[in-house]
């Protein structure tokens, strides 16, 4: 039963992400991306990573998609001849994609057991209970440096957006 659902959500994710690339209309691509994010979130839930699932919905399906839509509205997509530019190397892209897909498939189809399938998280999740709690405990003690670095990266992102977007407009 569980495996059936897992298969279902992964199939949805794969098909939707294929549609993202193949969609004719760019807004359709964005909507398919929402579907991809949502089914990935479901997969995260099934793997016991509820916090990641929440991030996936809140940040990706929420904020990032809004950012995408704004970015699409910023440029007049219809004026651009997308086909001429992006479809020029279509054959090559397909070929390379197939090669990489085959490589990945070969690696993952080989019979292997995970050498060591338990990270620190999985062990302590059983010990301490919820997924968010484990992440919290590790993030705010051992992983304090990556946590604070994340805020600096966000700061740079804000500065970058303001530098590139705001003053340009003042001049125009």
């Amino acid at each position, binding site marked *: 039963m569980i495996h059936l659902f897992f298969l279902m959500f992964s199939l949805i994710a794969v098909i939707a992400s294929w549609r993202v690339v193949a969609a004719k209309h760019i807004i359709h691509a964005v909507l398919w991306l929402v579907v991809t994010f949502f089914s990935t979130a479901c997969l995260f839930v099934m793997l016991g990573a509820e916090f990641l699932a929440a991030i996936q919905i809140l940040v990706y399906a929420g904020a990032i998609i809004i950012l995408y839509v704004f970015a699409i509205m910023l440029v007049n997509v219809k004026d651009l001849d997308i086909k001429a530019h992006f479809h020029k190397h279509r054959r090559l892209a397909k070929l390379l994609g197939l090669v990489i897909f085959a490589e990945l498939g070969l690696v*993952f189809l080989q019979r292997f057991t995970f050498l060591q399938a338990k*990270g620190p998280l999985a062990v302590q999740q059983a010990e301490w209970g919820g997924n968010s709690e484990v992440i919290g405990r590790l993030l705010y003690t051992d992983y304090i*440096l*990556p946590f604070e670095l994340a805020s600096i990266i966000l700061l740079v992102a804000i*500065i*970058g957006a303001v*530098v590139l977007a705001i003053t*340009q407009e003042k001049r125009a």
Partner: protein
Amino acid sequence: MQYNFVVLLGDIKQISAEMVIILTIVVIMLMDILAPRGDKTLLAYISLGGTLLAALVCCTWNGVEQSIFSGALVVDRFAFFFKLMLFTITALTQLMSINYVKLRNINRGEFHALVLFATLGMLIMVSGADLLSIYLGLELNAIACCVLVAFLRQNVKSNEAALKYFVLSLFSSGILLYGISLVYGVTGEINIYKIARYLSGQQNVSHPMLHLGLVLLVVGFGFKVAYVPFHMWVPDVYEGAPISVAAFLSLGPKAAGFAVLVRIVMVAVFTLKVEWSILFSLLAVVTMTLGNLTALCQENIRRLLAYSGIAHVGYMLMGLVAAANYPQLGITSVIFYLLCYVFFNIGPFGIIILLCNKHKICEFIGDFDGLSVRSPLSAFVMTIFLLSLAGIPPMVGFVAKFLIFMAAMKAELYWLVAIGIINSAIAMFYYLRIVVAMYVRAPKPGLKINASPSLTIALAIMVGFTLLMGIYPALFIGFARYSIATLL
């Protein structure tokens, strides 16, 4: 597991150089906000002062090696070496920027803050001991660099370069993350030293998924270090970005990327050395050959420097291949190469800045015609840099190349050395082409030197070190050897 204030303060003390950088950024941004009409040149001097202060603080390190922040970072000689190198690169960039940003009307507080942000990211990268903090440092550096590349907003080329840089760095960080997740999936660790310990405890480390993870890591860092097939962005970015930013990009991310690569392949997956040495030897061959052959037909000096930079990465990869069998010799040659590369590769960018004025950028080889008549000194300085890049005997470039070839000879990579020597001969041609243009051709009207004190100081430092390292390389080789003694 018990992480408390005492431990935290001890850890922060170990990264006090990084803290100085952060505080400088905060000061710059606050001054930028509080005095929007004020003179931004003051901010440039503050950022330079912050870099120098951080370098001084870094030098007070007592030599005790330890891992801090629960293994997220490591303070060791190797990181110390690269930190000093990064501070040098940043300080040279800032010195070259002071006048240039005024010239191009981009003298804004953000510019100076972003250079420091990019430096901060690289500092985290070189001392990162787990893949997570390395990744975050890389991202910090990539975002800051991307905004810096796009800083000439009215310029189409700058925008194009920024877009290419942005898309490719996102793409590469996606690949890198996938590689990290595969390595984590196999070993269950993200800490480099723990991965090494885990792998050395296994009888059979030849695991297809680990190989795939390693390949993806090499691809991901390939975009940073810019070896062929992941070099596409380099020429466009060097051509479009503000020149001082191009100088910064030509070394900073490369040095940091090499530091991370060395730490990963020499520590974490050293057990897979047969696999990665084959991979790197192939990459080395295509990188130097393609870089040199494409550089031959460039008319734009910035694009020429881009392709020559790619070729130089190829030589460095050769040292990395040799390191599989002779770690000491191989890695010493690689990081010595990087160290002297700092001075003679940023140098030509400084000369290009020297020759540009408000209306015109002299970036074509034709623009350098007869420079020796207009300004014998700058032509002489440029010649020193170019001869070093070409690796002509009395110069340090020769010593660096010689060390690399020697390491490869010792590792019995004769075919690789042969290709390397042929490539050096090809490279001679396009470097000397510029020298010929400067000394033999008749001068063009309108070529003017636009010297400023800060740029002169930067050029003097670079020339001084290029000559000093050529005369007395043993000192610097000794430093390189000292800094890797505890890594391997």
